């Protein structure tokens, strides 16, 4: 096993519940930190004695610490979500491709997130906001099941203050909700998009990304200017085990961020 594949010890410095099943952990290195990450990359988080899973980094680049947002969907993620302050977990990475948000310099950045898909997009958004003058419009479209299931809901006002146009839609809401109700693709239909000068970053469940990419295409954005974050069963993180293969791609190396031009033919193949 190479040194790159050995987990570094990180301690949970802070834990914040985003929703009923999603938690954001701030991790600080116990020993040598892992290499600096780029927005969109992921790490392998190891709950000792339980197992290891790939988790997107949800914090901005810079500094030795990591911010990771985890949804409890199984034994390992449940253990990570339950990790309390001071608990030590293993971290490998960072792995994979990044959003390449700087490719949108001088143009519009359009971020489209579904559910917890906002987590891996958050570093790209923070990076764009940190270099606000380099971009024209920064638009963020967020879809969630309900207002209660919005992640990073407490940050939306700050993103707006820093120059992003943020629109949120939910599938279901009770009276009193003053945001949109409907699917995130409807926000695309209503957005003012300059298709010739927009880089779209999309993350969410795969079906949502396909439908979103289609809606963006209807607006005239070419597939090569749409980037999606794909997930398969990442295990090794270093393109050796093959578990995360998607056609010709090993997503731990060639992804998770992939141009939709490359991803589109693969996402419509059954059992791939």
């Amino acid at each position: 096993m190479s040194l790159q594949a050995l987990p570094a010890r990180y301690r949970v410095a802070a834990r914040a519940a985003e929703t009923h099943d999603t938690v954001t952990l701030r991790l600080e290195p116990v020993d040598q930190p892992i290499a600096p990450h780029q927005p969109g990359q992921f790490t392998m988080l190891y709950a000792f004695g339980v197992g290891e899973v790939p988790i997107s980094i949800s914090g901005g680049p810079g500094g030795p610490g990591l911010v990771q947002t985890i949804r409890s969907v199984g034994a390992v993620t449940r253990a990570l979500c339950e990790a309390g302050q001071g608990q030590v977990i293993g971290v490998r990475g960072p792995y994979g491709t990044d959003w390449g948000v700087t490719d949108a310099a001088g143009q519009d950045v359009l971020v489209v997130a579904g559910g917890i898909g906002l987590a891996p997009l958050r570093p790209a958004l923070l990076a764009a906001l940190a270099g606000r003058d380099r971009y024209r419009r920064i638009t963020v479209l967020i879809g969630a099941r309900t207002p209660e299931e919005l992640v990073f809901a407490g940050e939306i006002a700050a993103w707006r203050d820093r120059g992003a146009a943020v629109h949120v839609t939910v599938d279901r809401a009770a009276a009193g909700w003053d945001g949109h109700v409907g699917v995130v693709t409807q926000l695309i239909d209503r957005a003012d998009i300059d298709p010739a000068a927009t880089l779209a970053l999309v993350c969410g469940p795969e079906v949502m990304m396909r439908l979103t990419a289609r809606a963006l295409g209807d607006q005239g954005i070419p597939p090569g200017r749409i980037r999606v974050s794909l997930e398969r069963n990442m295990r090794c993180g270093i393109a050796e085990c093959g578990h995360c293969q998607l056609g010709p791609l090993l997503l731990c190396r060639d992804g998770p961020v992939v141009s939709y031009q490359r991803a589109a033919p693969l996402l419509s193949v059954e059992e791939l």
Partner: protein
Amino acid sequence: MTGTMNDTPAPGFTGHAFLRGMPADSVARLAATATAVSFPAGRRLFEEGAPAGTCWLLTAGHVALFVHAPGSEDLIVETLGNGDVIGFSWMSPPHEWQFSAETVEATEAFELDGPAVMALCDRHPDLGYQLTLRMLGAAVRRLQATRIRLLDLYGTPRPRAGAR
């Protein structure tokens, strides 16, 4: 009509997304039945079960479509905004609103009188065809959006084998 009536509808009316591509003579006939209106936030546009005779082409603001849920809070079905049309129930029996609608924020629209539009379409089938195409298009888009919502896109994914 419960809003504030403003000036004659043109020119904003002719540029409304719903009317895009409609022949000018049809737009002009429709414009003659339209009134520019504005509503404050919280204004009830229509009530579930009441007679339906109006539709609105929204130009600003938001309107929430909702259903009453006995013993519970009202449930918002969808929100509509600039470029959308709201109010289909006047077109087909029983000509009653199937949902209720209320402005979420200050809203501007062009209001069309349903029976007047229907009479106009009877006299001018070309207009009727153009209007039907657009109402059908809007209904199809809503149906597709509703189907997508049925997928529960953002729900908890089912773990694959060997799951996390």
